[in-house]
């Protein structure tokens, strides 16, 4: 699978990927449902954070998994898009704390009213 972080049709493509294809991507992917509960967590993200999917899937994303994104720069954008029933495709510069090290990354926020999961793509900044 050679889907790229910046692919224009990112959301539909990602949503169609099975687990193995998701694990084959060279960037992190996390998907959560309307209740913000994590449903998908790929291998790249596991390697970055040190947490296996079974520790993450089923947990509240913004309060139990990624508190660092529970702010207006990330969480609020997902909430606003959902509330307004509008698609979201935005890339933001951010600093994550993978294994407690400050790591500059690019985040791509993807959601659409007609797709049940919301996706967050994470790629280490160049």
């Amino acid at each position, binding site marked *: 699978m050679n889907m790229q972080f910046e692919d224009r049709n990112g959301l539909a493509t990602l949503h169609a990927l099975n687990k193995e294809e998701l694990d084959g991507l060279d960037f992190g992917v996390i998907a959560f449902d309307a209740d913000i509960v994590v449903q998908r967590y790929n291998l790249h993200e596991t390697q970055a954070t*040190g947490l296996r999917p079974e520790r993450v899937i089923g947990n509240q994303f913004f309060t139990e998994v990624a*508190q*660092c*994104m529970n702010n207006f720069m990330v969480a*609020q954008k997902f*909430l606003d898009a959902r509330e307004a029933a509008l698609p979201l495709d935005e890339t933001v510069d951010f600093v994550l*704390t993978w294994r407690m*090290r400050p790591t500059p990354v690019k985040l791509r926020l993807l959601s659409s009213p007609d797709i049940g999961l919301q996706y967050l793509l994470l790629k280490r*900044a160049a």
Partner: protein
Amino acid sequence: MPQNFEHLYEELLQFLYRTPWGLIQAARNGDIQMLNPVAAKVLMPLAFNGRLDNIFDLLRSARPELQTLVAVTTERYCVVCEDLPLPALHQQALGAGAPARSVSISIFVQNLDTLMLVLRESQILERGGNASQTAELNALQNLPQLGLIKTREGRISWSNPAAQRLLGYSPNQLLNAPFTDLFAPGVGELVLENCLPTLMAGASYRERLSLLPRGAGTITLEVSATGIDLAQEEILWTLMVPVMQIPPARPQALNQGTGRERD
């Protein structure tokens, strides 16, 4: 890594990821070495270049005195400050009607090279300053640096123990004393004239100034000012770190407006 260690390492990581307080390890110069997600969440709005490199750079607008506070600390292990409010980092919780949250910082010197910092969020119970002001004053009670509040009328309404020690006056002697009496004639008025517009413009005020402690000549200090209620011209003066002390004594008494001399 053996399976058991791997499991324990993962548990430790998860514990740190979930910790509700921001934890940061930094070098003495402020370069961030490690931080947890809550610390990143609190600091990210200040990272205009999208990076979290140096804690003192990030907090310069909120607390310009932090780097000096650490620099003047020579002990190997000590508390530099505890629960010092960071007014510029008040967070609006997500969701309509959710209460705002205030952020405070504690800094601990771990050894000669390392700092541990804790960022703590708490709900602001009372909007408009009273709760955060109380937190600020509580924090300053324990700081080794001087803290004073000047009212609109130009009088001192509060002082911390460090201010009383450094200036040589009791709390009662400082209470209601004219703020300008702490400076050489004419200097205090100039300080106030420059400070208020700076704070009103949203900038931080920091100057090296000479004060007149009781019977001890002059003390030159790094002075920071923070607005508590700028509409009321109420200003908190903090962190006056002695830079040099000049001995010539002068007979001194603070004037409370009654003209009487203090003992």
